[in-house]
């Protein structure tokens, strides 16, 4: 095609860019000719704040690095601080086993609710509003659980250096088990409504194919990388917490859309997220099976929920550490630089959405304008992760 080119401004206020992403799209008729993403509209200087607060005070800010999966963001940071403290026997913390299990439990619950938003919002971007409401309804159930657990629906501030802030509330295990059963039934309905829907499948099949080598070169991680057929999951390949004791299965993209589908298209990324929801259900059941009973003392090495880190955090070892975790949107890694003081010298967070968003300028040219929102939805970009 060769018509007159038109510049179309998408965002920063646009209902389908999942936040305040701005795209300067150059179109040639219906086809995207070039895209210049413009980010930073939600740059809240979280990394600079990390240098101005004490180690433990930064935990609430990690909630806001990714509020769709705040538990996973908490998890990455507290693991990084604990890895730093573990370098010196004087500051090493004995994290109670029950706390480690609870962390994995809530992280997987949050992964479910995060993926629910991702698949629901993707369906909404493509034009189906109802699936989003089904997804939100299930997310509310997770929010209820977390609210009973820590009093917050969205930004939990639940994990602390040394454990978790509160033990599981009475009846939590039964509530979680009941929720998982309901979720499995709901996912069957959801698949009938969306996944098997011919229009939805055709909209996503073969669109924005990311090859395995391309995904690796662009530093994609998480479901976006696995959607391209690369079986890489830090929970299995570099386990942290109690993931090493769990049997983590890694679903990958297999051209699920059928004849027109290709490995690494929008539909594969979508299906990988659905399969990961079911995988998380399995993991949560396994964690419930090996959860030690609560102990009377909070810092009991088995049944406690929190080791006291107050003293250790006053004088942590100097040095630096990089800890990687598998968040719902890919590798979330914290780099901490310590000079032995009460405050970090540098807090750096690397997120999965950043690399996915960096790829847009490369991925979008050549697609139809209407597919732009489907592609952003399939990459599950959340802007606070990009801008920080």
């Amino acid at each position: 095609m060769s018509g007159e080119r038109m510049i179309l401004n998408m965002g920063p206020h646009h209902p389908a860019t999942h936040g305040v992403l701005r795209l300067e799209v150059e179109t040639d008729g219906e086809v995207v000719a070039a895209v210049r993403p413009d980010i930073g509209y939600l740059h809240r200087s979280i990394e600079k704040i990390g240098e101005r607060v004490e180690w433990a005070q930064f935990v609430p800010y990690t909630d806001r690095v990714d509020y769709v999966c705040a538990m996973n963001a908490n998890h990455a940071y507290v693991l990084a601080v604990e890895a730093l403290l573990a370098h010196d026997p004087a500051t090493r913390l004995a994290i109670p086993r029950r706390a480690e299990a609870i962390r994995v439990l809530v992280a997987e619950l949050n992964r479910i609710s995060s993926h629910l938003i991702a698949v629901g919002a993707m369906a909404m971007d493509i034009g189906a509003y109802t699936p989003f409401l089904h997804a939100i309804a299930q997310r509310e159930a997770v929010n209820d659980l977390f609210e009973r657990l820590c009093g917050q629906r969205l930004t939990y501030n639940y994990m602390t250096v040394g454990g978790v802030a509160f033990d599981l509330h009475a009846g939590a295990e039964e509530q979680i088990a009941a929720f998982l059963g309901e979720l499995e039934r709901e996912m069957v309905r959801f698949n009938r409504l969306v996944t098997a829907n011919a229009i939805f499948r055709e909209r996503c099949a073969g669109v924005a194919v990311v090859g395995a080598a391309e995904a690796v070169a662009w530093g994609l991680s998480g479901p976006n990388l696995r959607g391209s057929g690369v079986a890489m999951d830090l929970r299995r390949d570099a386990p942290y917490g109690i993931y090493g004791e769990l049997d983590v299965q890694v679903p990958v993209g297999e051209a699920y859309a059928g004849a027109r589908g290709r490995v690494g298209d929008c539909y594969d990324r979508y299906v990988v997220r659905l399969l990961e929801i079911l995988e998380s259900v399995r993991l949560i059941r396994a964690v419930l099976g090996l959860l030690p009973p609560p102990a009377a003392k909070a810092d009991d090495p088995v049944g406690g929920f929190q080791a006291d880190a107050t003293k250790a955090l006053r004088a942590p070892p100097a040095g630096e550490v990089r800890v990687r975790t598998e968040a719902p949107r890919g590798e979330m890694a914290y780099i901490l630089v310590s000079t032995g003081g009460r405050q970090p010298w540098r807090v750096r967070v690397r997120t999965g959405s950043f690399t996915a968003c960096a790829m847009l300028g490369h991925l979008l040219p050549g697609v139809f304008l209407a597919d732009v929102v489907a592609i952003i939805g399939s990459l599950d970009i959340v802007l606070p992760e990009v801008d920080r």
Partner: protein
Amino acid sequence: MGGTDPDLPDGVHLTAVDDLFAWGKEHSLFYLLFATACCGIELMQTGGPRYDVDRLGMIPRATPRQADLMIIAGTITHKMASRVRTLWEQMTEPRWVVSMGACANSGGPFSKASYSVLNGVDKVIPVDVYIPGCPPRPEALIDGVMVLRERVRRYRTLGLRDRDPQVIAGADDDFGTHPGKA
């Protein structure tokens, strides 16, 4: 609305035109689907099946031209501030603004420590109702909207208008039997 005269046939009401307009506006507050950060998720869930703000006549609009109400859901940075102003200017009068959450109210957790966050959206647009919380629960947002509806009801489309002072939702409540209260 105005009174009903028993001598009039059924379905006929007498009222001032302004009251009729206010009644209509109050029950169809279309809001701009504008979400920047964490509060946006709670805004989405408020529109979801459990809280269902549609029942209050509140329907999200993608364009400011069709919106009566702008809910500032999330942090506004210096880079975003001029865009917020532009969106607000595109809304037609009468227009209302609800500032949802600590960031939009005052910068919240980012107010002093951050170099890039605007310390309160009221620096660039006038705000009618402030809702505290980080993020506010959906119930708090609905409460803020109910407070705003009082203002909408008092709004005179044809007559002279005064500017009302700003309101902080829930500021007068004693929060019932909260365990934090002695």
